[in-house]
């Protein structure tokens, strides 16, 4: 009679996760039990508190120096330095996104109601909006936390779904332009499900090769296995498809513009920041931890993906006419830049920590700038909702100089102009990539330099469309009846202010953020 050994769960280490998920479940209960008029009043503090609490718990772990060096939860999760850093970033990003979400008017009162029908009017008049947004966001955030911390592929798949499913729904909840929102939701869902099937099949292949889905286990199997099994290669490719889809790398980027454009802007902000951070974290973990011994095989392929992503993202963004769509393509391009960092692996742990630091830093600064940019987008409104079309932004610099100035600053940060945080992010990954290319005996040397040059060219092209928006805002005469500038709520003001402060502050003195990223990266991923 075999007894099943009781699993050991490191509650202290996993506390941030538990807090978020717990709050999410409480949120569901609130939806079920609390009266409609009370729900928001309960949800908002609950959500914010849980996120803040989780962040505090992350901080406690870091400050106490208790970063675990072994896998937790029976080898299912790895709450190592990078994970904690990513968690911290995601929690901050989602906290500010929740502040945006909290703003009135972004979400439909009743998603089920047909637009323009009596049902909708009734739901509108009942007020309150869709309060299930909050628990959905918490679930998604929980998934985001789980995703990069997964220590085995199964966990990763589950995390992927936990992260994605609420987002599919959230995308469809925009109050204005319902058709677009629903379409975004459906496309995201179908394509997400499609790609996660690939991911899953990839897991199956890898499992078939290695006999395990634990990442270190896979890596060990790779070290042992002499022959390069086609099974493994296919599995690897399919795993890659799932991950690349999530970060929106070309040629898997197609969903991004549509979804970013259609989704309610606070959710777009969450996806563009939190999801990207989580997904890149997961990519790093899979490729560095799980496939570290195979880097000679995957680096050329990722080289192509990274180059293609940067170029496609930059070029396609040029002719966009919708601000959110443009930012979506910008996000594609940035995914490419991040992949350049992902490729910067070395032989030694110390050097790897340098590359890891670069990517982590990039994620943090890019995420916060992105949220700020989308927060500005929420404020520029037409009667029918946000003024998405770029022509409506013409002359904004005269109408609302502060707002336009802040947005211009975010755009410059995206473009990587020095004295903004974005510059140091870009610098960090390019430097890491070049450094990894000059290792003795590294035949990727020239290739890495070439990739960086491609990245630089893409940056120059990308600068064009960022600059184009600035031209529109500042150098064009305002149209006769321009968009209204919504009076921002305290929350939105706070979001923009925080983003701006971080973008400026890190731009002037990146050392503090770099130091944190460095500490996080130094412990490296648990293997």
């Amino acid at each position, binding site marked *: 009679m075999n007894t099943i050994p009781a699993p050991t769960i490191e509650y202290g280490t996993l506390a941030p996760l538990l807090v978020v998920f717990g709050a999410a479940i409480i949120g569901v209960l609130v939806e079920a039990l609390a009266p409609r008029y009370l729900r928001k009043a309960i949800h908002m503090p609950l959500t914010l508190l849980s996120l803040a609490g989780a962040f505090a718990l992350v901080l406690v772990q870091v400050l106490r120096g208790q970063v675990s060096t072994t896998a937790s939860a029976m080898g299912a999760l790895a709450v190592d330095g990078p994970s904690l850093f990513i968690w911290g970033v995601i929690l901050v990003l989602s906290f500010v996104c929740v502040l945006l979400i909290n703003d009135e008017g972004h979400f439909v009162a009743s998603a089920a109601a047909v637009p323009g029908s009596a049902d909708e009017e009734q739901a509108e008049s009942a007020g309150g909006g869709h309060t299930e947004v909050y628990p959905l966001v918490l679930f998604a955030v929980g998934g985001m936390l789980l995703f990069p911390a997964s220590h085995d592929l199964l966990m990763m798949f589950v995390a992927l779904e936990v992260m994605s499913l609420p987002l599919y729904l959230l995308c469809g909840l925009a109050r204005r332009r319902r058709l677009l929102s629903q379409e975004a939701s*459906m*496309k995201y869902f*179908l*394509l997400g499900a*499609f*790609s996660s099937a*690939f991911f899953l099949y990839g897991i199956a292949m890898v499992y078939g090769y290695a006999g395990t889905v634990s990442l270190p286990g896979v890596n060990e199997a790779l070290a042992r296995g002499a022959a*390069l099994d*086609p099974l493994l*290669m*296919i599995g*690897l*490719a*399919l795993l*890659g*498809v799932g991950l*690349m*889809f999530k970060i929106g790398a*070309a*040629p*898997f980027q*197609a*969903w991004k*513009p*549509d979804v970013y454009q259609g989704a309610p802007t606070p959710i777009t902000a969450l996806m563009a920041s939190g999801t990207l951070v989580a997904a890149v974290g997961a990519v790093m973990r899979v490729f560095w931890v799980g496939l570290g011994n195979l880097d*000679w*095989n*995957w680096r*050329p*392929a990722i080289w*192509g*993906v990274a180059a293609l992503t940067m170029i*496609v993202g930059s*070029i*396609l*963004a*040029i*002719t*966009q006419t919708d601000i959110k769509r443009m930012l979506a393509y910008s996000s594609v391009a940035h995914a490419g830049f991040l992949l350049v960092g992902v490729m910067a692996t070395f032989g030694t742990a110390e050097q790897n920590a340098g590359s890891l630091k670069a990517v982590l830093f990039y994620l943090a600064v890019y995420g916060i700038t992105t949220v700020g940019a989308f927060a500005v987008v929420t404020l520029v409104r037409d009667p029918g909702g946000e003024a998405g079309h770029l022509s409506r932004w013409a002359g904004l610099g005269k109408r609302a100089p502060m707002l336009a100035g802040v947005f211009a600053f975010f755009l410059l940060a995206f473009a990587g102009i020095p004295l903004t945080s974005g510059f140091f992010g870009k610098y960090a990954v390019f430097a890491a990539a070049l450094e990894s290319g000059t290792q003795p005996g590294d035949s990727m040397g020239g290739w890495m330099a070439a990739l960086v040059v491609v990245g630089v060219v893409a940056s120059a*092209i990308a600068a*064009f469309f960022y600059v184009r928006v600035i031209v529109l805002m500042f150098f064009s005469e305002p149209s006769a009846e321009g968009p209204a500038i919504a009076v921002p709520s305290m929350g939105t003001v706070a979001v923009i202010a925080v983003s701006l402060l971080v973008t400026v502050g890190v731009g002037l003195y990146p050392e503090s953020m770099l130091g944190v990223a460095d500490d996080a990266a130094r412990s490296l991923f648990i293997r």
Partner: protein
Amino acid sequence: MESHIAEIAQHTGGVIGLSWLMIAFPLVGAFVLLVFGRFTNRWGHLLGVAMSLASFAVAVLAFFELVGFGEEQRRRAVHLYEFIPGMVDMGLLIDPLSISFALLITGVGSLIHIYSIGYMSHDEHRRRFFAYLNLFVAAMLLLVLADNYVGLFIGWEGVGLASYLLIGFWQFKPSAAVAAKKAFVVNRVGDFGLLVGMFLIWTTFGTLAFGELQPITSENPTTLAIGLLLLLGACGKSAQLPLQSWLLDAMEGPTPVSALIHAATMVTAGVYLVVRSGAFFFPEGSGAALAVAIVGAATLLAGAIIGCAKDDIKKGLAGSTMSQIGYMMLGAGLGPAGYAFAIGHLITHGFFKADLFLGAGSVMHGMNDEVDMRKYGGLRKLMPITFATFFIGYLAIIGFPLLSGYFTKDGIIETAVHHQPILGWLAVLGAGITGFYMSRMVFMTFFGQKRWADDAHPHESPSVMTIPLMILSLGALGLGAYLVLSNRLLLFLAPAVGRPEELPAFHFTSTPGLATLALVAVGAAFAWMRYGRAEVPSVQPRGSFLTTFARRDLYGDALNESLFMRPGQWLTRLAVYFDNRGIDGIVNGLAAGIGGSSGRLRRIQTGFARTYALSILIGAALLTGALLLVGNI
């Protein structure tokens, strides 16, 4: 020891030590007049004259101090300051050559300043005129006094600037503006030569100071190249072929300007340059010297021919100036033997040509600024002083015996016949032509019937104008004899430019001299027949092919236009087109290309979810393929 050039001695005290004041006085004058502008309107011209006279006074004192030194001590260097550290020290070289020029410049310059008080009295911008004149004097003095090529060049361009400003003084006339620009640009062609010449001097000898260059006796390719480049510079400034075309147009400037700059001083700068560099780059009998002589001979003929056909009195005189400077260049191309005559002619020419120009100005002053000689005639009675002084100048320039021009020009001709017979005889021919065109000018202006318009009231000029004329005509009378007889000038200049192996003696009855006189007489007689005795038509007759040739300045402008200006304009247009469409076209095309590909690529994003799924599938296939491929390598 072929060249006998004295060593340069450093000098700190005395008037020579203060010789920078010569430059400073007029410079201060120009500065005050320009900067304080309208405030100086009432007394500006007086300041200008005073500064010029002060400069003259310094020059005279410096001259006497210099003469006080022994012959071998007569090259005094005054160090001013370090200009380009390690390369050029700015300093002045006071030697017989430069002091001669300084005396001429400040002396004649002062007279012309005084004359201008009267001539420009009705011009509202008289103060500015004097500022420019002062600026010119300062620059010209720097040109001749500087002890190195860079200082010379600064003065060189400074006089170019003053010339530009003064030719274009009546800039509201488009013709004046064009003439000013043309003068400057053509001069710049010469400057190109001078500049490259300096590069070569520096590269070869490591110095640009006159005092550090060594006289040479034989030529090598480098010095030949330097010589030819300097000659190009000299041609520009001295209006020698092929860069002569600007001088005739330069007559757009007020007449005192023509007298001072385009006759007496600035245009002789080329001669100065050649003589100053003579020992270093134009040794006697060298190719470079021969080139100088050839250019001089060619120009003296060309200028004379042009002078024959001009009805504009100033242009006629301008042609004559070209021609006379041709003589000087010819002299300067003959080595130390010719230098003294060249400089002598330069000095006497300074007097008589200034006299002639100012006389012409006096005529114009009385004739409502009419310049067409066909509208003159019979003025000798109405303007007796002008006539008398002009006539002395006339006699001097045609080489009437015993007047200034006789001695100096004859010296050049004789030396030329001796050294370069062909060129020498061409110079004789030129003298004959001079006799013709100058006589023509005198007859058309002062003799014959009056042909002027009814509204003209010819009258004698005020004494502020006539007194300078009288002084100048005195110079035209006797200076030549003083300088040439007993080789006074030659011996004076010797420490600076060297002396010929045997001193020339002046023969009153040499063959070339007599031939010259004969030809001049023929020319003058011919002119009398055509313009003195015969009626002068007041409208220009068509004239023969040759006349047209001369009237068109020997087609020099036409040549320049078809060789340089039109191709230049085409080149410019082509370059602008290339820049806008070619280079910028590529840049904009690249941008448009990226934009266009973006516009096309975004069509791939069809909006159909199934297409997106297909792209994922294709991506998956590609990724798999890539990995399998890499795995198998």
